[in-house]
């Protein structure tokens, strides 16, 4: 029995309706997003379920997970911090900011803290070049932008996030955080 279909039949129907009936494989990416939102990553089992719905092989689904950097096939850290160090951000101190953040957390880019809560990655352009240094946080499938950052500011935010995760009620983190990054 396809658990994904059973549990999310309405969402799956809605996604299917977005594409022509003879183009079912187009549902692979929206379904991967749905699963990641629910589970935080995409397991083998879910890949098989998606493949069944989309009418493709599980290998094809896995190849898509592998190709696109925002899809994860393992749980990873609860809070994935992705710092942009690309050209424009680098010119405004992003690398120094990244180094400072890493030394505060005692990890290197690509690593996860020992408690499994926080990981740091270097990523490329997030379309926020005028508000560097900045990072995006991926929590489940939700993405938040945090702009105009300093190491202190990020650490304060992280501490409050970690505190709320350790408390029994998980926060419903879906707010886009602009951190004062006005476009005016």
């Amino acid at each position, binding site marked *: 029995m396809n658990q994904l279909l059973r549990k999310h039949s309405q969402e799956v129907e809605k996604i299917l309706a977005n594409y022509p009936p003879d183009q079912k494989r187009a549902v692979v990416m929206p379904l991967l997003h749905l699963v990641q939102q629910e589970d935080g990553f995409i397991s083998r089992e879910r890949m098989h379920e998606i493949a069944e719905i989309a009418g493709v092989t599980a290998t094809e689904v896995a190849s898509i997970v592998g190709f696109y950097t925002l899809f994860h096939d393992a749980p990873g850290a609860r809070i994935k911090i992705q710092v942009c160090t*690309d050209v424009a951000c680098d*010119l405004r101190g992003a690398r120094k900011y990244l180094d400072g953040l890493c030394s505060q957390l005692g990890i290197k880019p690509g690593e996860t803290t020992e408690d499994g809560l926080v990981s740091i990655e270097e990523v*490329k352009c997030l379309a926020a070049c005028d508000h560097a240094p900045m990072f995006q946080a991926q929590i489940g499938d939700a993405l938040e932008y945090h702009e105009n950052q300093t190491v202190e500011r990020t650490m304060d935010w992280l501490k409050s996030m970690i505190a709320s995760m350790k408390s029994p009620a998980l926060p419903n983190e879906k707010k886009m955080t602009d951190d004062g990054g006005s476009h005016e």
Partner: protein
Amino acid sequence: MSDLFLLRHRNIEGLNQLSIYLENGGFKTWKKAVTTQKPEELINEVKASGLRGRGGAGFPTGVKWSFLPNNIWPHYVVANSDESEPGTFKDREILEYNPYQFLEGLMLASYAVQAKDAYIYFRGEFWQIAHRFDERIAELTAAGYLGDHLFGTDYSLRIHTHLGAGAYICGEETALLESIEGRLGQPRLRPPFPAVEGLFGLPTVINNVETLTNLPVIIGEGAAHFRSVGTEKSPGTKIFSLSGRVKKPGNYELPLGTTFRELIFTHGEGIINDAKIKAIMPAGASSALIPATDVALDTPMDYEFVPALGGQLGSASVIILDETVNISDLVKDTVHFFKHESCGKCTPCREGTYWMSCIIDRIVSGKSKKEDIDLLLTVARNMQNKCFCALGEFSTTAVVSAIDKFRADFEARLES
């Protein structure tokens, strides 16, 4: 900044709410088009306006639309909201603050080519923005601006969103189509062009967010009004994303043909710490490096004059470098970017970006001999005109121009 076509939300607070967009004339052009105008009238108006695609290539939009064959149906329109070029952050501002004008533009483009389904392809990082658009599309459907038999006519239109997942290559229009279809984001061989065989193998128009956002102005107020700013061959305004070593980075909507000097020193308020400006990248990481001479600074930013400087206007993401920057560090950034984003389909790009990254790392770390600079140049030159799509070609642009114009910066890094 009073005559804004695109960043109108800077003068009208709350323009990202439907009620306020409607109060300010929103969707009047849409209703008028569907109820009183023939699709060809829209295409002709856009052709007359001279609007050129704002995503990078600068191809005339009306001409692009007219390539769709009238004997193959259905037609599709796809909005390219995959904004990913390093240094580009203009579409994000439109999508967050002036979303309805973009949607009205997408709707007008759909009507012009008689598409009944349109897709918006968002880069995966715009997760939150995409969710807001799902709500806005539902809101417009409930209000009767989208859906079946619009305003009592035979015309129906549905808009769908599709979220990417972190791949720069999907900004390339055929890779974007592959991605919607549920495949790896790798470019297709052209021809056939998307106008003939596009999404799901059917005739498709793909336009950038900023391009589409111009349409309510052109169709609502006429081509002549649009042409009242800009230059003869590059009419209208353009959003310039200014970043790098300037005091006031940000988006600036200015007439095409504005000089680099005005953008950098008047709007951007000059260089951080009043340092000396060194070079300009007018089109993000894909740019050639243009030495910031007086001639360059006084060059009008449009689709004709920037190429004369050896660069491209592209999506007008203007990155400024000053004397504190060693150009070899910058080239390291651009090469690593393209290596990471190469889709792996063609060998020159996949292998070339890898070898360029190895060599530039060696140079920057001070472990190189002089020969490495020429070796890097040779690898880049050997990739040119051999890559499957523009990504591979663009990966060489900064490298070749940097070694040509700023070789001393590389030599300063060599093993002593």
